[in-house]
Every structure is written in C-alpha cells, then in structure tokens.
C-alpha cells in the first residue's frame, strides 16, 4: 500500500487483540468475522477450537491472501452485506476494531445480533485520558498511537468511548455478558469493575453482547 492510499481501518494489533477475542468464543461454534483482514482469527478459531469460522473483508488484496490460504473469506462490506445472512446463522459475529469505521454503527450492531446469537465487538476508546488531555490542552483533534491519522484522512468516522458504548447497548437492549478494557498492546487493564476508570485508562475495549430474551 502506498503512503497516499487512504487506510480504511486503524492498524490492528492483531495477535493480542485477536487472542482476547478468541478467548471469548466457545469451541465448535459458528463464527462470522467481519473485517477479518487476512483471516488470522478465523484460521486460529478453526485450527485451535474447531469452529466453523468464516470472514468478510472489504480490502480485496486481503481477501485474495485469505482465500489463497484456504480460508473461507468473501469480499464484502459490513455496512451493506450483513443483511444477506439469515437470522441466527452464527453463534458469534465478530467485529474487531472496525465499528468506528463503518457508516452506520447502530445498524451494523443490530444486524450482527440478528444473524448471530452473540456479538463480539472491539473498538479503540476515544475516552482515554491522553485523547481528552490533548483535546483540552491543544484544542486540536488528538493524535495518539491508537488515533494516529489526521482528522481529514482518518477512516474512523464514528469514534466512541467505552461509556458511549455502554449507553448504546442499554438503549438498544443488548445484554453485556462480558467486557474488558485493555492497553494498546492488548494487556488487560485492571478496571473491569469500574467502567468510568476503564473509560479513562483503557486504550481499547472488548464487549461480548447478547440479544435480550
């Protein structure tokens, strides 16, 4: 990719981020990974957990790489292609560090919990203290390791905080089965019982959601 190409998603800290997600997924289940990249997570879920894991990816070069590795990945867009899956087609639908880059996050979440019994969502936290401090101190859009692109070229058009996400889940009636905050390297942050602290110190968040009965 040339430096002039717009980057669609934030750089993914694949290994650690995905390991945390994989820990949330039960063996031998049906999984759809939206924005699966080169298919690292679905490969992991198939080989270590015997899952029927499939992926959707918008970047054709990554789709080609994934399929060439024998992984069931199709070219598609989170915003437009989830509606083609039937209800309850999957046990888990994963959206890893992509929610902030989709056009209609609320609809994407609704689709995820229509086609899957559970949704695993991870996103970078815009409520992190460094983000807040930079905006306060400099009066300009924050630039951090996680939020590393200028406002006019970032693909991350819908940033949110951990607190915002809790609010959305409550408004939409999604049960938060598990959640955790982590630093950028994916190390678990120790504020799991305190959303307000997690929202200040967690660089990224990971949620396991379920439709309310």
């Amino acid at each position: 990719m040339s430096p002039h190409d717009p980057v669609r998603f934030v750089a993914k800290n694949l290994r650690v981020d995905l390991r945390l997600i994989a820990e949330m997924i039960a063996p031998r289940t049906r999984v759809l990974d939206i924005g699966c990249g080169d298919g690292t997570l679905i490969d992991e879920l198939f080989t270590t957990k015997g899952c029927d894991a499939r992926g959707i990816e918008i970047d054709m070069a990554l789709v080609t790489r994934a399929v060439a590795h024998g992984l069931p990945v199709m070219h598609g867009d989170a915003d437009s292609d989830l509606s083609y899956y039937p209800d309850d087609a999957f046990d888990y639908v994963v959206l890893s560090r992509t929610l902030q880059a989709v056009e209609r996050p609320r609809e994407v979440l609704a689709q995820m919990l229509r086609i899957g019994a559970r949704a695993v969502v991870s996103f970078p936290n815009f409520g992190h203290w460094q983000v807040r401090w930079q905006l306060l101190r400099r009066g300009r859009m924050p630039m951090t390791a996680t939020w590393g692109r200028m406002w006019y070229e970032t693909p991350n058009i819908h940033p949110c905080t951990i607190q915002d996400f809790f609010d959305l889940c409550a408004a939409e009636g999604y049960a938060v089965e598990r959640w955790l905050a982590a630093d950028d390297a994916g190390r678990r942050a120790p504020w799991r019982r305190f959303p307000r602290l997690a929202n200040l110190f967690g660089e990224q968040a990971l949620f396991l959601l379920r439709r309310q009965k």
Partner: protein
Amino acid sequence: MDQTVPLQDVPHQHVVFADGMMLDCGVTLPSLTVAYRTYGSLNPVRSNAVLVCHALTGDQYVAEPHPLTGKNGWWDAVVGPGKPVDTDRFFVICANVLGGCMGSTGPRSARGDGDDVWGIDFPPVTIRDMVRAQKRLIEHLGIGRLFAAIGGSMGGMQVLQWAADYPEAVFAALPIATASYHSAQNIAFNEVGRQAIFADPDWRGGRYREAGTTPARGLAVARMCAHITYLSEQALARKFGRRLQGAPKTADEAMSLFGDMFEVESYLHHQGSTFVRRFDANSYLTITRAMDYFDLVADHGGDLAAAFRGTKTRFMLASFSSDWLFPTEESRTVARALNRAGANVSFVEIESDKGHDAFLLDEPDFHRTLAGFLAGCAVHAGL
C-alpha cells in the same frame, strides 16, 4: 480472410450409454455418447475427482494438445502436475458438453443406426441436460462424490447447476466468471452470432452437411463478435491500439483498403477462421441457446437461495474486474444468495484488465486463490 478448413471428424475417448437420456425439452435421446478426457489418477477411495466444466467453445482437451489444432490445452495454465488444479494430487475429468462437436452427442451425431445425422434437428438442450450427461459419466467412472467441480463462464453455469441439483455429489464448487442466469445483453450478443450463421448461404437451413458445404463465413463472424465480448477495451487498446497492419504506402491505398487494415481486424479474422476448423455451426447454435435458457433463479421460484438451501458444499466464486460479459455484480449476486442459504462461500474479484478471457489466462492472483481454496477444502475433506 484465411482459407478455412472445415471441422474434421477425429476419434475421441468416449463412453456410450445405450439407454439414452431424457432431455428437459421432453425428447429422449435414444443413445447418449459422452466424450471425455482424464488427467492424474483416481485414489483407491475415489475421493479426489475434480470435474472441469468447459465454456461455450471449449472442449475436453483441458491440459493436452488439441487433436485438431495442435495447440496447448485451453486450461493448460491451471490444470497439470504442480499447477493450481494439481494432477499429481487430483483426478481431473473433463467431458465435452452435450450438444458439442468433439465427440459427445450433438448435432453431428448419428440420429439412429444409419448415416443420418441430427444436424439442425438436434433437440434443444439445457445446462441441466449437460450436467445430467456429466453425472452419467461420473457414475460410470465409479465416483459417488466429486471433490470439486470447477468451470468458468458457461462452465460456471454447469458448476452452479451441479451444486443445485446434486449437492451431496459436490464437496467444493468453483463457479468462475459466471452468473445465475444469462443476461439480456449476453443473449443479444449470442443472437447476433446466430444470425450471422443463418445469413451464410452455405448454412443451407442447417442442412449444410447434406449439401456438402460449411457455413464458415457465418460461424467466423459469430466467433469474431463473441470474441470482442471476451476482451476488454483496455486489453484491445494494449494489444492493438490503432496500429495498422503493414503501413499503407499512399493515402489512396489507405482509403481503399478494407479487411486487414488495422491489426485488431486481422486478429479477429484469424480468430474467426481458426475457430471454424474446430467447431460446428449447429453445435454453436445449440450451445448458445442452452446458455440463453439458463436461469437458476427462475428455476427456483425467483429465489436463488432456494437452489442452495442447507447445502454442505463449499463455494469459491471468482470474478474479474474488467469482465463486462459476466461482471462482478453477477458473482456477488450468487455470493449473497449463498449467504442467504447459509452456505460456506469464498468470493474474490481478481484485478485484471483482460476482460472475460482472464479466467483462461495467466492471472497469478487467480491461480493462487484457486490453489489455496482447493488445498483448504482438501483439509476439510480429509484428503
């Protein structure tokens, strides 16, 4: 235009099903011949068979020199030892389609016991009829389940039909550069080709064989028209541009020359005349009609997903970015229907400026995905 040599009859490896076959149109063929070639060897448990389905003007000579033209097999780049469809690993089968002219039952076949051939009276066949004939061959070879069925263009239609009609008999399906129905634009181009054949006085109402003629000009024009649809504007511009075929010496000469003036014209003339040596006009009419009839959506009450509901078959769809005959959107439509059906589907659009023909050509990304997908399926199939 080059001097044309009409299609010669040569022997082809084949199997005869003396009990014949009932066609979708209601006619029963009294006897069915399926000409085919195989590459590699069938493993003891018969689980490594790969069926390759050829396109409109293809044939069973996938990976070996053609008996009439001497040219390399049409998918030599894809099928062979160490190639994406690896004949060291898989037992590859390709049959000449029903209605074809390379040995399978078609307009050139004997109608009964005598010398009388079907000719223009050959009944209309469908893609489903072609697949039924292939199913007979597969059973004859003692294969219960194909590891994979692969085909591009009309071959892709056959693959979709296989997956819809015999889901238990296809572990992996690879419909390439194809569609779930033949579009109005594609029917229109086929009709231009057919009208070119009809307009050739040597066609003789389809009874050219009895008259001892060959509608070479009409068939060549049909091929030329179709060939344009297989390419892209970029590919034509890159290959030929506006280059002239031998620069005319004077302005007068340039103005008076028709025929091989531009390189692209000369190229098309060559495509037309060489095609006539290996193809039969009535077969061309029969097979283009079969493509036009193809509509898997209508066959399933307007819902393509119904064709695949509950299928265990693993799918790989591939399209090519500059293909305007079977554009990516048509593959995407199939992919979405497969999603609705809950099927396991991989789908990739290959970046290429070579148009529809790209599926036959050297496209490393396509070959890598093909090989990788088959390798992945082999793991799941326990192969």
